[in-house]
């Protein structure tokens, strides 16, 4: 059960956030922006302090999951710097494949929309609908 999805652009701004259940806290838009910026920051810090080898395959060294007693937060960073975040319950060990599918939906419904300006918040009914479908499948 996926509670919410966030998409953060390359500069740390919030591009998209949506809650899918009532159990998760309903963030105000300000809080959501602060969350996005904070996460962007700690994700960058995590890749900097990582002891793993910096090399060709070492792109996504940042945070992949954050575990708490109540939920697990999954993050998928694309090679272009966009982060897809899902807050889900502890049932799922890794939502990386779901987030890759969300990346595909972002490419198809947000990027291919000529009126969508890059890095700006996504306002697309089709994107909302397809993402809802994807979330409900899990």
């Amino acid at each position, binding site marked *: 059960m996926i509670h919410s999805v966030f998409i953060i652009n390359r500069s740390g701004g919030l591009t998209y956030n949506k809650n899918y259940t009532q159990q998760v806290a309903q963030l105000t838009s300000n809080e959501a922006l602060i969350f996005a910026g904070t996460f962007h920051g700690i994700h*960058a810090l995590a890749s900097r302090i990582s002891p793993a080898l910096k090399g060709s395959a070492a792109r996504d060294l940042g945070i992949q999951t954050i575990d708490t007693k109540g939920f697990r937060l999954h993050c998928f960073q694309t090679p272009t710097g966009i982060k897809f975040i899902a807050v889900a319950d502890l049932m799922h060990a890794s939502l990386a494949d779901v987030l890759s599918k969300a990346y595909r939906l972002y*490419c198809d419904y947000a990027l*291919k929309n000529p009126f969508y300006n890059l890095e700006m918040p996504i306002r697309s009914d089709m994107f909302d609908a397809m993402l809802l479908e994807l979330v409900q499948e899990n």
Partner: protein
Amino acid sequence: MAKQYKAVGEEAWKNIEKANAELFIFTYGSLVVQLVKDYEDYGAVNKQLDKMGYNIGVRMADDILARTGLERCPDFHATAEVISKVGFKVFLNITPTITGWSTDSKEFSLILDDNPLNDFCELPPKAVQDGLWYSNILCGVIRGALEMMQMQVEVHFVRDVLRGDDTSEIRVKLVRLLDEEVPAGDD
């Protein structure tokens, strides 16, 4: 490594939705015709095509990455391979040959044996004289896509069959790598 990119490109090409080639070619042709009518200066048309290609390219990079799950390339040689065997393959179903590497591995050429955009196209002599690069949108696309991958490049046509040369050649030159931005302190 080349084999692996070729396989990735073919796989992605198989799964992608296809559009009618003639529709695309003729739409592009009428686009160029309209630009020529509006600007009346072939140099300005070239610039505009490059700009349009740039806007397409910045979105295309994510599209390719989402479809293929590729990670960042280890060096510029791999980048060239991906552009040719994955990028061009998935979107135009051609694989340009990569040649003309400079000694510092910062420049290369893409030789397009059969550019589908050139089908059904003939340039009037004035266009050839004034330096119109008909498929200049491709240069913009490469420039935009690579900029999303943190590489600043200069891309331009060197030869074009529509201008009477034997093949079409695009020269790609790496200017510099753009450093990733550290997150700003406050919004």
